[in-house]
């Protein structure tokens, strides 16, 4: 009985936990915030306070409204999709982690046509904001945060 317990203990600490950690490390956790920036009446979404502080140093929009928030956990080579306003789709594919950065392949599709594709190398626990598509009376911004 004692030997069996010891074997379980060894398996748990030397096999199960390292395997779990390795599995977790090979996954890239991604969060996509879709924001509508415009020059409408002043509105700062409270969920975007940190992001707005950054964006205001570059843009002069008066309204920042969070439209949606999506979380993905993707393995290398796995593609995740996020639905965007205006029949657009954002496809994200992690291509690996090198030099402390996660390489992500991004593709924005509209009506199933790729309108913009890029490859970025994102620092761990950091984000990039991709913007440009016009929507309603403003522009769409996609803040993509990655951690691994």
């Amino acid at each position, binding site marked *: 009985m004692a030997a069996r317990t010891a074997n379980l203990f060894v398996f748990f600490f030397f096999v199960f936990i390292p395997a779990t950690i390795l599995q977790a490390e090979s996954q890239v956790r991604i969060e996509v915030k879709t924001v509508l920036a415009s020059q409408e009446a002043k509105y700062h979404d409270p969920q975007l306070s940190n992001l707005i502080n950054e964006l205001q140093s570059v843009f002069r929009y008066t309204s920042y409204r969070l439209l949606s928030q999506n979380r993905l956990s993707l393995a290398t080579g796995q593609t995740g999709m996020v639905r965007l306003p205006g029949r657009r789709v954002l496809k994200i594919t992690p291509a690996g982690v090198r030099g402390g950065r996660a390489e992500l392949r991004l593709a*924005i599709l509209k009506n199933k046509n790729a309108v*913009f594709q890029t*490859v*970025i*190398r*994102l620092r761990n626990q950091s984000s990039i*904001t*991709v913007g440009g*598509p016009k929507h309603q009376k403003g522009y769409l911004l996609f803040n993509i945060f990655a951690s691994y």
Partner: protein
Amino acid sequence: MDLNKPTATCDRGLLNRYLDGELEHNEIKTIQDHVALCEDCLEVLKRNRLFAGALKSAVAREQSGINFDALATRVLMRRNRRPSDWKIRLLERVRLKRFYIPAVSFATAMILFFVVYTPESVPTSPSAIITSFSGEISSVTIMETPNNRQTILWFNEISADNGKAHGSQNS
């Protein structure tokens, strides 16, 4: 003082010392002569003898129930007994607490201070490096926020209707 006659100042202290056997030979003779003549002192002497006898017998009775040898052995054993190991360790820990509780508190306070008040370091590189881009776009602008070097990638879509770019940057 002449104790051979009864007086108002009969020496009760001398009587007590006589009773306790503390008098010199000549004093014993004097007190015996006095008591033979003084009824008051004789009465006091008898009463004190009675009381002393009762007290002695009571003490002797109480002492007879005590095993002094066993008591002495127990006292000696208790004096010679050393505290057990776990007691020693406990005492050492209590003594150590006087040092390490303030030390740990101080260290915790310092860590909290540096965690809360140390300004976040500015990243030394942009959050993202753009390796490539392509698509139905008229222009691309890559920016970086001054505070945290957060990368912003702005593209202007070509309108499907007239082939003109309709995005606009607002900086």
